[in-house]
Each structure stands twice: as C-alpha cells, then as structure tokens.
C-alpha cells in the first residue's frame, strides 16, 4: 500500500473517531459518557497526528501524542473525581441537573418527561478482602456506592 493511501486510511479512521466523539459529546447528557466522548475526540486527533508524523517521516507527531496521552491521563483523573463529586451531590449523572449555575433570571431548561429507567440489579462488584473470611453483611453488600 502506498504511503498516501495509508495516510488516507489513518486520517479517515481518525476523523471518524473524532466525529463520533463530537456527536456523542453533543447529544448525550450522561457525565461519564460525555467524558468518554471527549476522550474519543482526543484519540481521533492523536491518530491523525501519528499518521502525519509517519507520512512526513518526522517524530514530532509521535512525541506530541505521548504528551497528549500523559495530559489526558491527568485530566481523566481530575475529571472522574469531579464527576464523582457532582454525582454524589445530585444523585444522578445527568448534566442537566447542574443548570442552576446559569445566569440569574434565566428560565431553566425543562425536559420532556423521560421514561423511568428500568431498575438495574443493584449488586455492585466489590473487591473481596484477601486472606480472611468476609463477614457478609447483606445491607453493606447491596448498598450503592455511587
């Protein structure tokens, strides 16, 4: 495969990733999903950087990508901590719950009635303590940690 064709393929995949991420970011309201979409946009850009780097036979594209990954890791740590805090506060991951940071006097955006989510099993996986017999407390076992 010629270098140009390879570049085209990579750029195509990168732009698909970016477009998907952008679309997801725009239309989803779940905090974690929005965060994942943003990451996906980042990866799309990273991919195209690498493709260009290879095409020009230049390492700076790769170098930049490593840099992006490092920063994205830090950002992910902070963002997930924030998401966790926001979620604890409002009891839900919906971004619309935070529209009270709007300008004073502005009417809030009100959804159409959303169908209630089907109740999932609330059994969340937990790590088993090593070495000892876990004292299985039914209450503790089924308590939501989110």
């Amino acid at each position, binding site marked *: 495969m010629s270098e140009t064709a390879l570049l085209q393929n990579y750029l195509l995949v990168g732009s698909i990733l970016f477009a998907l991420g952008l679309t997801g970011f*725009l239309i989803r309201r779940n905090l974690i999903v929005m965060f994942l979409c943003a990451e996906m946009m980042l990866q799309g850009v990273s991919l195209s950087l690498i493709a260009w780097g290879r095409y020009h036979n230049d390492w700076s594209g790769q170098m930049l990508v490593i840099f992006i990954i490092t920063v994205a890791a830090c950002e992910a740590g902070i963002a997930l901590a924030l998401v966790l805090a926001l979620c604890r506060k409002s009891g839900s991951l919906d971004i619309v719950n935070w*529209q009270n940071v*709007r*300008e004073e006097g*502005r009417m809030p955006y009100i959804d159409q009635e959303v169908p209630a989510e089907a109740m999932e099993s609330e059994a969340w996986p937990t790590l088993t303590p090593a070495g000892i017999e876990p004292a299985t407390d039914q209450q503790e076992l089924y308590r939501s940690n989110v």
Partner: protein
Amino acid sequence: MSDNLIILIPFFPLLAAILIAILGPKLLKENSHYVTVLAFAASFVCSLMLFFSVQGQVVEEGTSFESVTTLWTWAAVDNAMIDADGHSVPFLIDVTLRSDALTSIMLCMVTFIATLVAIFGAGYMHGDRGYWRFFAYVSLFVFSMTMLVSVSNFLLLFVFWEAVGLCSYLLIGFWYHKPEASAAGKKAFLVNRVGDFGFALAIFLIWINYGTLNFHDYVVDGQVIIPGVFGQMRLGGALPYVQGGMATAICLLLMLGACGKSAQFPLHVWLPDAMEGPTPVSALIHAATMVTAGVYMVTRCTPLFHASPDAQVTVACIGGFTALLAGLIALTQHDLKRVLAYSTVSQLGYMFLALGTGSLAGIVAGMFHLFTHAFFKALLFLGSGSVMHAMGNVIDMRRFGGLRHLMPWTFRTFLVGCLALAGIFPFAGFWSKDAILASVHDRAYPGAHSHDSQDSEHDADHDADQDADDHATHSVALLSADHAGSNQADSYTNIYVWLYRSACFTAFLTAFYTFRAFFLTFYGPQVIPDESGHHAHESPPMMWIPLAILAIFAFLIGFVSELDHKFAHLLTSTPSLAFAGMHDTMQPGGFHMDIAISSSIIAVLGIALAAFLYLGHQREVEAISKLKLVAPLRALSLNKFYLDEIYTWAVVKPLEFLGIIYFWLDRWLVDGLVNLIGKVPVALGSGFRYLQTGLLPFYSLSMVVAMLILLFLGQVLWGGG
C-alpha cells in the same frame, strides 16, 4: 548652667508625657499623677534656678540680656531667596532655646501653676476612666507651652503654637462622649485656625522682609552671619525695621494670630465653650497659660509693632473693645465657669489694651497683668472646680448657693481670688490693673505724666472725663514740640482717651460680675442640687491646699513684684523691649496715686452694687430686670450679644450651604463620571449574560457551530490557505 536648665525645663514634662502614654493604660493607671507632678515640680525648680541666673546676669551684663542655646539644625537651605540687594539668603532653622527675662518669667509662671493644677487635678479627676490620659495630655501641654515661650524662632514658635492648640483641643474634648464637649473642642480648633492662618501669613511676610525667622543673631566665630529679627544688630539700630504699610500688614496678621489664641474679638467665641473641658484644664490652659500666648507673642514682637502706630492702636482698640464686650456678657451668665471664662477674655483684652499703648510702661503693665492674672484666675477656676466637685458637676449658679459654711477653704480662697480680680488693694490684681490704667492714661494724656511726677499735688480725684479735652489739646502741643517725628501716632490720642474711659468702666464691670458670682455661690440660703447626693462636702486637702498656695500668691505676688519695680526692671532687660526706640517712650514705674484711688473707688462701687443686688433677697434684681429699658439689654448680654448666632448665620450656614453644593457636585458630577465608565462594561455584558444557560450541551454546540462558522469564513475569505 542656664544652657542645661533651659533644656531640662521642657524635657521633664515631655518625659512625663511619653512615660504616661506608654505605661499609663497598663502600669501606672491611678498613679499617673505622681509622674506628672514630679516632672512639673522638677521643671519649676529648674525654672526658678534659670530665673535667678538670668536675674544675676542681667545685673552683671546690663540692660539687654539674652542667652541662646542651639540644640540642632532643623532645616538648612542655601540660596533660599535673593534679597533686594541681590545677595542670596539661606533658610536656616535651628532648634534654638533662649533664656531672657521674658522667657524666664513665663517659664516660672507656667511651671508653678502647672504643678499646682496637676496636684489639684489628681484630686479632681480621681476615679475618671481617662485618668492617665488626662495627665499625659497635660504633660504634653506643659512641654509645648514651655517650648513655646523659650524657642527663638518664628517657625518653631508657630509649631508649638499649634502644639498647645492641639493639647487644648484634646483636653476640651476630653470627655468626648459628651456631644457638647466634642463640639466645643472642634469649635476651639476651627476658630483657632482662622487666627493661625493670619499668623502663618505674618511669618511669610517676615521671611520676605527680614530674610530670617530667627529672633537672635546667627553668630559664627563672633561674626554676625544672619542678623535676627530681634537680634542685637537690629535692636541696636544697625539695621532698620520695615516701616509703613508692610509693617502694619505684618503686625495686623500677627495680631490676628494672637486674637485666635488669646480669644480676642472677633475670635473670642471659642473660649467660653472651652469650659466643657475638665476644670483643672480650664484653669491651666484656658485661663493662666495658653491663652496668654498671644500676649507673649505680641510682647516678643514689640519692635515690629513699634514700627507701626496704626497696628498698635488697632491692638489697643481690639483689646479695649473685647474687655468691655466680655465684661458686659459676664454680667448675666448663670454658669459660674462661663462668668470666669468671659472674665478671662475681658482681662486678656486689658492686656492687649496695655500692649497697644506702645509705650514701655504699657507693655510691662500688660505682661505684669498676664503674670498676676495667671495666679488669681487659676485660683478662681480651681475654686469653681472645687465647687463643681462638691455639687456633683452642677455649675449653674441658680442651683446652688450659700456654700460658705459647707466649703470654708474654697470660700476663703475664692474670696481672695475675687478681690484680686476686682483689683482691691493690696491684692495682685490691684497692682497690675493699675499699671495698665496708668499706662493707658499716660498714652491718652501724654502731658499728664510729667505733671504728675513734678507736681505731687495733682488733684487725685480729678474727673477724667471733664479734663479730657483740656489734656488732649495740651498734650498735642507738648508732644509736637518734643517728638516731631511721631506726630502721626498722636492723632490717635483721642482714641486712647475713649479707651481709657472704657477701661475704667470695664474695671467697674469686673468688680461687679466677680462679686455677683461670689455672692450667688457662697451667700444666701444654702442650696445644694440633687446631683451632689447627700455628701456635699469640702474638697479633700489635695484640692484645697493648691488653692491656699495660689491664694497666698494672689495676695502677695503683685506687691512683691512691684516693690522697687523689680518686675519692670527685669522685664525691660528682654532684648525685644530694650532697644533704642523703645526707651524714648514712657518708662514704667510711674505709680499714679490718682489713678490708683479712682480705680479702687470704681472697684469698691462695683462690689457694693453687687452686694446690694445679690446679697439677701434678690427683689431688686427681679425688679430691675423687668424694667422695659433693661430687659432687652439683659437679653442681649445673656445671649452673648448674639455673636454665636451671627456667626452661625453669617459664616457657618453659608459654608454649610457651600459644603452641600460641593457634596452634590462630588457625588453626582465627579463620582457620576467615574461610575459611568464603570457602567459601560456592565451594559455590554448584560446582552451576553443570557447566553449563560447552565446547560453544558448548549455550550458545546455553540462552540462547534462557532468553529464551523470560523472555518467556513476562513475558507471564503482567505481561500483556505
């Protein structure tokens, strides 16, 4: 030795002030007065030693004696001004203390009275919340006052002039939680500003005309570098004093300063209100010492005033008029301290009247009256403080009376003070008031003096009014022969004749209002206000012993000083008074039997009238005050000739109105412009503000849309470069 003494005298009170200010609130508290009294006493001892040392040196060195101690150079500017001859004049201000007769007399008087007042104050202020604060202020005041009389420089004189003003303000407003007291403090401060403005202008004019502000000659290696304003070179006639209109301007501006500080018309209105301060302060600052600073200053500037007969006659007129005005107001006041305050204003007027005669005799008489007045007026004020202390801070004479059995010591000492103020032989006031009347009389009837000394059979009871015209014409003829050069001054003789008559009438008023207050307070049925509780009693010894000491001095000091004309001889050795031009004027020391007798008769008449009206039932007073003719006059006097009201409407209200206009201009024009600039971003932002919806998807969508628009525009405009 006198070098060290003159430094130590202000040093002790300053040390006391600093010590009390630092240690007072935590450590000294109720013991603060020990520091103050000890410091004042030490200062007094130093002052006495200085006094005797000066006296000794005057005898040794002859007429004009001064000793100057330079501490350090405060300001030195080369080439500060080019004078009329094209020489550059340096501006040199040394912190310099001088000891001469005038200074040593003032220092003795100030420190002696301050010591007694501090002892009295320790009793009077006992239990006050601001006990230590009081003594810190008083110490600071005594430091400033001792510096004021001993500095040898107009600029430093002004500095300490302001410093005593500051202490006065602090002490008038000592009970600052009382609205009247803080208002009185402000009034005193503001009225004094008017005077100080004049004083400052006078200092500028002196600098321009004389090229120095020092009193003394600035000498390096026996060579006079800068001749001082009252230095030996000028006084000896080697350099001239400025004459004519400029001299008059300087003197009138100086007099404006003196009017402010010494409460002369039209700036006298602050002194009666200053009585809101603690009574020891009224005695020390507003009767004995600070208010005499103006008299001291005019005396110190005698050579300047000598150059301007116009200014001298103005001083005399202001003094004579103030004496009369304040005497009239004092007739009807109900507040014991206010009667004394107006009497102080009146007596200060007397002093200025004497200074305004321009003769050596007059100036010595003015200073002599300052000296004796300090003792008996401090005595009277402390006496009123003692009464106030016993009466639970009530000072309205209608609410108490007949206290002579209750407060025997206060009664006796107050009587001595009243006799001295009224000018009864041989109390202190008699001698000094007589000296003043004699000097004014000599000025008004210039021929009479020589007649008196030659012709001892001069009719003692002659009617001044009848002979006035004879004497006046007679004297003009005599003088035009004697002093051809001083004709202009003699055109004022007629004014002095009237001033003499008004002074005699004021003497009558003084005796009357003094004894009116005395009879109302100590005679009649015993009345005690409820505020005093059931323990109205004589003040403790700590308070009446200073009274007794002052009473002894009020009795003796005039007689002792007049013996052999000691006071006059010492005072005339002051450089400012011992210069050639001054010696041509009338010499002090002429004791006029006729004036003495007539003024004594006047005083006795005043006392007799007061006794007739205010002893026993006051039927006559009621009857007289109801007369159609008297009632409006009485209202006029009671309301202080409506001067406060006139000032309110003529000065305070227009200024307040101006202030309101400025306030609105500032609020709406100046602030409005600034606020307008501040409002622009707010207005711009108010449109965009509504984009803040709080919806994250909205933000991200707008970002994407905007980015697309930019990309599109980029493509279109720059061809996708």
